[in-house]
């Protein structure tokens, strides 16, 4: 089972990376962009089984290693 995890800076935490990208885009003519945030994409595979159980297991992985819950939020998506 293929899993995709999106890790992003928590809302309200200063995101200088997002700001830098946001400032760079108008230089290329993309001047209608706002609220840029830069996060991290993690993909992994777990042994096939119950998708709901896999969601729970991957959430545990996020809490313990893949994300730092103090500063990052995460979303887990089960890909078919």
């Amino acid at each position, binding site marked *: 089972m293929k899993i995709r995890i999106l890790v992003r800076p928590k809302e309200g*935490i*200063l995101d*200088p*990376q997002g700001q830098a990208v946001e400032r760079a885009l108008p230089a290329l003519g993309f001047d209608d962009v706002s609220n840029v945030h830069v996060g991290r994409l993690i993909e992994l595979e777990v042994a096939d089984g119950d998708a709901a159980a896999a969601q729970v297991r991957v959430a545990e992985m996020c809490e313990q*290693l893949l994300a*730092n819950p*103090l*500063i990052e939020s995460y979303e887990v998506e089960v890909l078919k």
Partner: protein
Amino acid sequence: MTEKRGGYTPPSTPPHAGASSYGRRKNTVGVVVFPGSCDEADALNAVRRAQGLEGRTLWHGDHDLSGIDAVVVPGGFSYGDYLRAGAIARFSPMMEAVGAFAAEGGPVLGICNGFQVLCEARLLPGALLANTSLRFVCRQVDLVVENTDTPFTRSCTDGETLSIPVKHTTGRYFAPDALLDELESRDQVVLRYASGHNPNGSLRDIAGVCNEAGNVFGLMPHPEHAIDSLTGSADGMKLFESLAWVAA
């Protein structure tokens, strides 16, 4: 020439200084070495220069802390800083042993990447984020000592200014506001950047924090690079010499 600030003078003799002639041993400080550490040699050198201390390295794959009185987790890029700075190092056998050592009250000092490792290991509150400038900063900064009642700052005086260098890209101290209030009310903010010296956007100018018990301490600046006035300042020595007072 930089005029030396902080007015460093050697502290009065700690109990273990010169102890060998009386048959008492010096305190032994262990310096953890991960793949990717780079400041362990300077940390060990600082320990060996300090009165009343001797030092040895602790390999990340070992877990034996027998005979160790204090631990330093040094700077560098442990495990390549993959995922997040300090995130992988905390799972090493040595860090598990350091966690148990800290739980029993053993003093643990984390410097730069070591601070990041201790935060990731949840031995210290908060987290370190990318500098607001997104740039590597390397410069001498002034730090104000806010708590001298720790095993790491006993040789300092309250409100004293220390001149110590920083060199990092991921040093912006962050914790939610409510947690910052708690840290301040419990005197866990040990060091702050002096006004105008915050190099990374750390909230409330925080440069170093300790845990609630006071025996685990992390800071972004590098005291091990400030141990000789020849290179600008010897103020960092005070943090190491404080460890000589730790009861062996």
